[in-house]
Structures are given as structure tokens and as C-alpha cells.
């Protein structure tokens, strides 16, 4: 097959799976799930160290392979300024200048605040970050984020952790049609068919955490999602048939024996 690498911020990725590192039952299962996913991009959050229990390991102690691209997020931020502060702390790790801008408007829906997300994206692009904002599936705000210099845009399929799948395929399709940067569906997917559907819409990749980490068998689900991404991508590139109202036979009847 032709070279079908995904390019973001000067980096070429052969996997279109971005995997989150929260909620796994334990570090061993997480490590195996990451391996089964084939993902090259791993997301993290930034939090205070619990000074009463410093032996609670940093997540990084369980992830050895430095071939990964780290994508820290700004979760917990509710303003652009808070997100910028978290982004600077993340970059100070020396591990990555990629940042997923995640600014939630409220705890019930965790829906992204579009105004603050746009402001944070503008500020972080100026500071030289590779900015991947998590945003609602609204084509207009996605365009504005691209104009602000986002390296990719990451519209949600449904609210974080809901597993509801793609609530608005029309919007996602429109975002893909108009975008000049990669589109990564981030949040809300539940199972492999959701993922395939997203990829068939032409999105460039998916970011998932909960549907893998909280599956009964996270390692097997990671493999399922990997195949779903590949199937959906190949179907998108192949060009599906048009929908027809009535049947059309696979073999014509011109040479039928009883004619």
C-alpha cells in the first residue's frame, strides 16, 4: 500500500491511534494494552505529587520506550491562563512540546470551553508549542483553531467517558471536509464500530482512553480498536459504493439458462 503516514508537528506517525493512560486496572495491563494498540502517541495529565505517598510511582516509570510521542493534556484547567501554566510545566519535563489543550466548562459534561480553548491555543502557538486542542464537534470553532495555528484539531464524538459514539456524523464529516490540518476524534467513543465509523468519515485518527481502559479485557479491546482504525481507514481510502434504494444483482440475467 502507498505511504499512509499521519504527519503532525513535523512528526510522522504510522499509527493513527492516540491512547490515554488513565483508568487502567494496573500498570501491567496498561503496558500490554499500549503494546496491543500499536499507538505511538500517549496522553498524560499533570498533577501535584502526593507528598504523603511519593512511592506512588510516576506513570513514566512504567513506560520505558522513548520512541513514544508524549501528549500531555491541560485537564483540570478552566481558563486559558491555567491551561498555559500547565502546558509550561509539562514542557519543563523535557519530554515533549506537544500539548493537548483541554479546558472544561463544567464537571457534569466536561465539554470544552470554546472561547478559552481558542485563547489558550493562540497563546501556546506563540510560545512554540505543538498544540492539539480538544474541542466540540463544531466546524466553525474547528476552523478558528486551525487559523490560530493548531497542529491538529480534536473534536469530540460525545462527552468524555460516555462511550456514546458519534453523536453528530454530519458535523464531523464537515470538519474533515474543511480542515487543512489532521482531525483526531477525541472522546466519547465506546467500541470498535464507533471507531470504524469515525475513520470512514475521513478523520485522520482517534484518541481513546476509557473505552480501552475500562473494558473487561483492556488488552483485547486495544487490539480491537487498532483493527477498527485500520479497517475504517482502508474503507475510507477505498471509496465505498453509493447507497441505492433497490437491489442490483451481482450476476446479470442476460445469459440465464431458462431464457
Amino acid at each position, binding site marked *: 500500500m502507498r505511504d499512509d503516514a499521519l504527519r503532525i508537528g513535523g512528526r510522522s506517525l504510522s499509527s493513527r491511534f492516540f491512547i490515554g493512560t*488513565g483508568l487502567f486496572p494496573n500498570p501491567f495491563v496498561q503496558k500490554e494494552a499500549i503494546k496491543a494498540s500499536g499507538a505511538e502517541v500517549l496522553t498524560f*495529565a499533570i498533577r501535584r*505529587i502526593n507528598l504523603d505517598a*511519593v512511592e506512588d510511582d*510516576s506513570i513514566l516509570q512504567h513506560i520505558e520506550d522513548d520512541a513514544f510521542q508524549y501528549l500531555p*493534556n491541560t485537564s483540570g484547567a478552566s481558563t486559558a491562563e491555567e491551561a498555559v501554566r500547565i502546558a*509550561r510545566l*509539562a514542557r519543563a519535563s523535557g519530554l515533549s512540546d506537544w500539548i493537548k489543550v483541554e479546558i472544561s466548562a463544567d464537571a457534569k459534561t466536561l465539554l470544552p470551553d470554546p472561547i478559552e480553548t481558542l485563547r489558550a491555543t493562540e497563546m501556546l502557538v506563540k510560545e512554540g508549542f505543538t498544540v492539539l486542542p480538544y474541542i466540540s464537534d463544531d466546524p466553525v470553532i474547528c476552523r478558528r483553531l486551525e487559523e490560530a495555528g493548531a497542529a491538529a484539531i480534536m473534536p469530540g464524538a460525545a462527552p468524555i467517558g460516555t462511550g456514546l459514539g458519534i453523536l453528530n456524523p454530519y458535523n464531523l464529516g464537515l470538519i474533515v471536509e474543511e480542515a487543512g490540518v489532521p482531525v483526531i476524534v477525541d472522546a466519547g467513543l465506546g467500541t470498535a464500530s464507533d471507531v470504524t465509523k469515525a475513520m470512514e468519515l475521513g478523520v485522520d485518527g482517534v*484518541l481513546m482512553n476509557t473505552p480501552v481502559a475500562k473494558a473487561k479485557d483492556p488488552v483485547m479491546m486495544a487490539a480491537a480498536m487498532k483493527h477498527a482504525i485500520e479497517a475504517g481507514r482502508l474503507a475510507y481510502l477505498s471509496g465505498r459504493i453509493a447507497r441505492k434504494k433497490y437491489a442490483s444483482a451481482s450476476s446479470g440475467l442476460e445469459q440465464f439458462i431458462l431464457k
Partner: protein
Amino acid sequence: MGNTHSVKLKVNGVMQSLQAGTVQDVIAHFGLTGKPVIVEADGVILTPEQWADTTVSSGMVIELVHFVGGG
């Protein structure tokens, strides 16, 4: 540890009394030497090279953060 003295610092939101001269001493006090720690002192992010040169004094606000699992 070089010149340490008794200081009261707000570390990760909690007032702490400890013996420390520099940020490096604070890191050591909490058993974090050699661990992947990111330090912010009075709103300024410090590189690991700056830890031993940054003196601490009472009233400073220090944040010790790291990467955790997240999506």
C-alpha cells in the same frame, strides 16, 4: 546539603516546616531525588540545573508536579 535552615514553605498547597537551603534540599526532603519531578517556585518553572542554585526562604510557594495517567 549545604547551608540549610528552618523554613516554612507552602508546598503543593500545604504549609510545611523543614530544614532546607535550596530547592534541591526540598526535593530531597520529600524523597524525590532522581524522580521525574517538575518544579515551580513562586510561579517560576525551574530546570533541574537550577534546583541547587535556587535558595528557599520562608513564605515561598512551591509546586512539585509530575505526569499521571490521563486521556
